[in-house]
């Protein structure tokens, strides 16, 4: 066949349309972790700003950007495991 009709390309849904669609879904139940409310808070001071910058670079370079608190807790956990082993 020498001639074909013009292919129809599905029009991409616009961002607002997708946002509106997603927004109609319910949110996940609010966390009711008692430990989150009673968690011990230990503020960290980064005197060495380079260390903080390196932390942020490492945190952002992962496939999924973890919250800073989670990333630091994971790092502590990994060090403790390494030291214990």
């Amino acid at each position: 066949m020498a001639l074909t009709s013009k292919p129809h390309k599905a029009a991409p849904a616009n961002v607002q349309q997708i946002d509106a669609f997603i927004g109609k879904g319910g949110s996940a139940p609010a966390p009711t972790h008692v430990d989150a409310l009673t968690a011990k808070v230990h503020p960290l001071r980064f005197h060495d700003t380079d260390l903080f910058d390196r932390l942020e670079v490492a945190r952002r370079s992962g496939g999924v950007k973890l919250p800073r608190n989670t990333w630091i807790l994971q790092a502590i956990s990994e060090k403790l495991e390494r030291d214990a082993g």
Partner: protein
Amino acid sequence: MITVVGGTKGGSGKSTVATNLAVMLAASGRDVLLVDADDQETSVDFTTLRNETRPSGAGYTCVALTGRAVFTEVQRLAPKYQEVVIDTGGRDTASQRAALAVADVYLVPFAPRSFDVWTLDKVAELVEETRAVNPNLRALAFINRAEVRGSENAEAAELLRQKPALEYIPVSLGSRKAYAHAAAAGLAVTELRPQDPKATDEVGALFGYLFDIKKISKLKTA
């Protein structure tokens, strides 16, 4: 292909199906991303157990995502993997909608019980609504946790067939202890030893229907 295992009813076996499919895809040689978009994070827990108990690790990558990030991150990560399986919670959440907006296939397990099939209309409406933003979505429904005897399976199948928004898959997974035993050990039911042949056959039939893959490598238990 991006496959979302979802629905609007809890307890229909979504995480069991999602984790089994992810393991079987990995065993067939595919590079697999399992996305846990359920706040219960059952797939993450399963994967953690699997990573801890198997020297070779889970065999696939698992991440937990919620809300709109399911859409944006899966869009970004999907080209890096051959298969993406998304496990969503049993409610009409922003996470499930975000997954549907980016999915190729929506796989909905229904248990053959009244409370489950009563959610059929809502699921069908959700599919229709999704097609406004994702016109090529293929929505598939099948019976999970099927009864060993009685008429419930056939009755549920008839109700599923009546929904034009969903394509009924004539494959069902039985209500078998093997699935729970395998999950408790961080295994797909195909990896369980001694094997439950019926469970292995039926999950293999579902897998073959979805992915048209015949060969699954011999799976070793940890």
